[in-house]
């Protein structure tokens, strides 16, 4: 998310669930995509178990319901409209993940950058 102070609205989502709870994995992408479609600048910060959703190979195989599209479908919807994905090192460590294990395009930030984003966002929404 950019640091400018123009009149663009910003929402920062925080995703704390991962592959252990497929039913909790898709909502953030639905809502983030909807916000971005309304010209809101949107980021999703994956922390705690959230980064497991970004592990290469996972989005294509994780299904929210037994019948239905895999998570990759909803993730791509969000990315197509400009939603950005962020992780931080400690939450990767928690699941023994490295940046190179993740899908392309994920951005690494730290705690200071996260808090700055939260302060500059119009809303922060946690899942």
């Amino acid at each position: 998310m950019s640091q400018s102070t123009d009149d663009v609205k910003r929402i920062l989502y925080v995703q704390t669930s991962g592959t252990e709870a497929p039913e909790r994995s898709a909502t953030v992408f639905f809502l983030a995509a909807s916000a971005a479609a309304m010209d809101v600048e949107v980021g999703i910060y994956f922390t705690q178990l959230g980064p497991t959703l970004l592990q290469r190979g996972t989005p294509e195989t994780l299904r929210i319901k037994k019948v239905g599209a895999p998570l990759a479908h909803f993730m791509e919807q969000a990315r197509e409209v400009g939603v950005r994905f962020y992780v931080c090192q400690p939450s990767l460590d928690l699941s023994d993940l490295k940046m190179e294990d993740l899908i392309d395009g994920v951005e690494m930030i730290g705690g200071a950058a996260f808090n700055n984003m939260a302060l500059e966002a119009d809303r922060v929404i946690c899942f």
Partner: protein
Amino acid sequence: MANVVIARTLDCRGLVCPLPVIKLSKAIKSIAKGAILEMLTTDPGAVPDLQAFQKQTGHEVLDQSQAEGVFRFLVRRTK
């Protein structure tokens, strides 16, 4: 609203949230400023979603109607 010129029709029938709004967002940028887009959708949340879209983006919902489960919106690109 019988005499409006429709620049493009966006058929979202059968698609569910959040696809109609995502497609609307892309489609509205594909027509000229001031032009009008017709959107057809069966998404039951479409009316409040289009109101929100108008409020946040400034693109104007000129007309809305519903027939046989299909919502029809006319949206003018304003910027």
